[in-house]
C-alpha cells in the first residue's frame, strides 16, 4: 500500500455537510486545536508530543564539526524528517513521499530560514570548528497536521536542549562533559510556529488543525508561520481552491492568538520539567566521595 485509503463519497459528504452546519467530526470549534500534550524524556532535547492522535517524537542532538567554507562564523542547524511505516501503513520505509517533502520544506522555511535558532552563537572557533545541531523528527502516529505538530515539538526541543560547554584555550577546542560543566542552553531568537488551516465549500468554511479525514475532504490549505510577537515569517497557499483575501487576513489574526497560546503552554511544561531536573540536580554527581574525573588536556 503506498497511498492513504481514500475517503468514501458518503464520508466526504458527511464532513462537508456537517461543516455547513458548523459542526466538526470531533465536536471542536473551527478555530480549536486538538488536545496538545507535550512531555520531555530523560535526555535534553527529547520531546514527545501528542496532538490528538498525531504522535511525534523529536530528538535534538549536537556535535562539533567544521563550519562551511563560505560561512566561517556560522554553526550548522538541520531539521531531519523521515516518514516510516510506523506513522502510517501508507508510507513506505526508505522512500520519500509528497508529505515528507512538503513538511520538511515548510519546517525549514519557518524555523531555519527565519533564524529561530541563532546559528552564529554556535561558532566555537572561526572557520575551524562549530556546533552542528540536528533535529530528528519521528512521526510515530499520523492523524493529520504533522507540520504544526512537528513545528511545536522542534521549538520545544530546541528550548529544552542543552549542549556541552566548549572553550578555546591556546587555539585548541576543549569540550567539557556534562558532568564537568553545566551544559549550555541554545540561543533562541524568536519562537515561530506554523498554523495550518484547511478550506471547505469554496473557502466558506476554514478550520484549523484538521484531522486526516478532514484533510482528505478539504479543497485547499493555508499555512501561516508566525511568532508570539505577531511577525509573519511564512505564508503559503500551496495548492487547491483559491481562498478569499479576507480569509487570509482574518486567519492570520487567529493564528497569532493560537501561537501565543501554544507558546505559553510549551513554556509551562518546559519550566515544570526544568524545575524537576533542578531538584534532582547534580547532587549525586557532585558528592565528595565520588571518584575524581581525570582531566585530559
Amino acid at each position, binding site marked *: *500500500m*503506498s497511498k492513504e485509503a481514500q475517503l468514501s463519497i458518503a464520508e466526504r459528504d458527511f464532513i462537508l455537510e456537517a461543516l455547513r452546519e458548523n459542526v466538526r467530526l470531533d465536536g471542536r470549534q473551527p478555530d480549536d486545536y486538538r488536545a496538545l500534550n507535550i512531555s520531555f*524524556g*530523560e*535526555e535534553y532535547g*527529547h520531546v514527545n508530543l501528542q496532538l490528538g*492522535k498525531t*504522535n511525534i*517524537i523529536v*530528538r535534538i*542532538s549536537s556535535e562539533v564539526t567544521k563550519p562551511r567554507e563560505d560561512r566561517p562564523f556560522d554553526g550548522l542547524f538541520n531539521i*531531519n524528517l*523521515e516518514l*516510516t*511505516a*510506523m*506513522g*502510517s*501503513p501508507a508510507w*513506505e*520505509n*526508505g522512500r520519500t513521499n509528497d508529505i515528507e517533502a512538503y513538511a520538511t520544506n515548510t519546517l525549514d522555511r519557518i524555523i531555519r530560514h527565519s533564524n529561530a535558532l541563532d546559528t552564529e552563537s554556535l561558532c566555537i572557533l572561526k572557520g575551524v570548528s562549530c556546533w552542528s545541531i*540536528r533535529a*530528528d523528527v*519521528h512521526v*510515530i*502516529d*499520523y*492523524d493529520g497536521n504533522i507540520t504544526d505538530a512537528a513545528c511545536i515539538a522542534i521549538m520545544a526541543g530546541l528550548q529544552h536542549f542543552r549542549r556541552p560547554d566548549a572553550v578555546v584555550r591556546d587555539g585548541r577546542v576543549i569540550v567539557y562533559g556534562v*558532568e564537568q560543566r553545566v551544559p549550555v542552553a541554545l540561543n533562541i531568537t524568536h519562537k515561530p510556529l506554523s498554523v495550518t488551516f484547511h478550506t471547505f465549500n469554496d473557502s466558506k468554511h476554514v478550520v484549523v488543525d484538521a484531522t486526516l479525514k478532514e484533510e482528505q475532504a478539504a479543497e485547499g490549505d493555508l499555512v501561516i508561520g508566525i511568532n508570539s510577537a505577531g511577525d509573519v515569517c511564512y505564508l503559503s497557499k500551496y495548492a487547491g481552491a483559491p481562498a478569499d483575501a479576507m480569509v487570509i487576513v482574518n486567519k492570520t489574526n487567529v493564528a497569532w492568538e493560537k501561537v501565543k497560546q501554544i507558546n505559553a503552554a510549551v513554556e509551562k511544561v518546559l519550566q515544570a520539567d526544568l524545575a524537576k531536573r533542578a531538584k*534532582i540536580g547534580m547532587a*549525586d*554527581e557532585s558528592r565528595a566521595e*565520588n*571518584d575524581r574525573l581525570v582531566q585530559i588536556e
Partner: protein
Amino acid sequence: MRDRLQTRYQVQAQLRRPIKERPAHEKSQRETTLLLPTLRTLKKLPNFYLSIVNMVGPIASLSQLNRADGSASYKCPATGYSILGAVNAPIELPARRDALKPEEATVEVFVKPGTTTAGVGERHVEGILRSVLGKIVLGREKGFPRRGVVLTLAIVGGENVERGDSANLSQYLTILPALLHAGLLAMVSASVPLSMTFSATLLGVTKSGDIVRDLSPTAAKAAVSLHVFAVSSKNHLLLNESEGRFDFDTWELVRERALSVCQGETAASADGDVTMGEGTASASLNGFIRETVEDQVYSDYAFKLDSI
C-alpha cells in the same frame, strides 16, 4: 482447551489481583521503574551499585500506536536504549518484491536511528533481524503468502550508536538484543503467526575474563569480546553474533551463561505447559517476554475475566 484457558486465567486473576488497581498505562511495567531516575548517577558510582543497575529488568509495553497494526516499546535500563517497534502485516507490497518467494510472506525490517541518518550499521543489523524473525514467522499461514510483514524499529532513547571504526568493537551488538525484543513484541502485538518466541542477551568478556551481562555502550568499548545470543522458547539457539578476540572455551562458557540468562529456572512440565512461578519466571528473559504478553492479554480480555 477453552476450559483450561479459562481456569488458567482465573488462577492468574487471583494471583495478580493488584494489577487492576494500577492505572492502565502502567500495567505492564514492573515496580523496578522506581529506580530509573537515579540510573545515570548510579552508573558513575562504585561497582556495588552497578550490580543493582544490572538487576533492573527491562520495561516493555504493547500496542500503544493507533495506525500501525501492532506496536511495542522496549526499554533496557542497563544499556539505556529505548526502542519503539511497529509491525504492519499482512500488507500489500509495492512493485514485484513478492516474486522471489511466491508461496510465503516477505519479512522486511527497517531500523531508524534516533539522531543520525541510517547507514551501513543499520543495514547490517536489519539483515540480522530479518534472518532471525524471517525464520520464526509462519509466512505460509492463510492470508500471508505474497504479502509483506513490515517491521519498523525506531531508536527513540539512549546514546547514539557510534559509527564503526576498526579499533572499536561494533557498537551495534549492544543494541541488538533490544531491537530483537522490540521486534518480537511488535510481531506478537500485530498477531503475526509465529512458530516460537525467543529472547536475546548481550554478554561481554572483560579484560580480567569476567562475563558481564547487558553492558552499557561505554563498558562495551572496553570489553575484549562481545556476544549476542538469541534463545528460543524451545531452547534452540537462534542467533550467535560474536566479535572480538576469544577462544572456543570462552565462547562455550558465554553460551552457557546466555542459556541461563534467557531460560532462567522455567521448566517445561510433561504436558508442555510452562509452569510460571511469580519469582523465578521474571528473572529469565523468556519469562519476561511471556509476562509482558500475558499482561497485555489480561488487559485485552478484562471484559471476559470480569464476567466470570
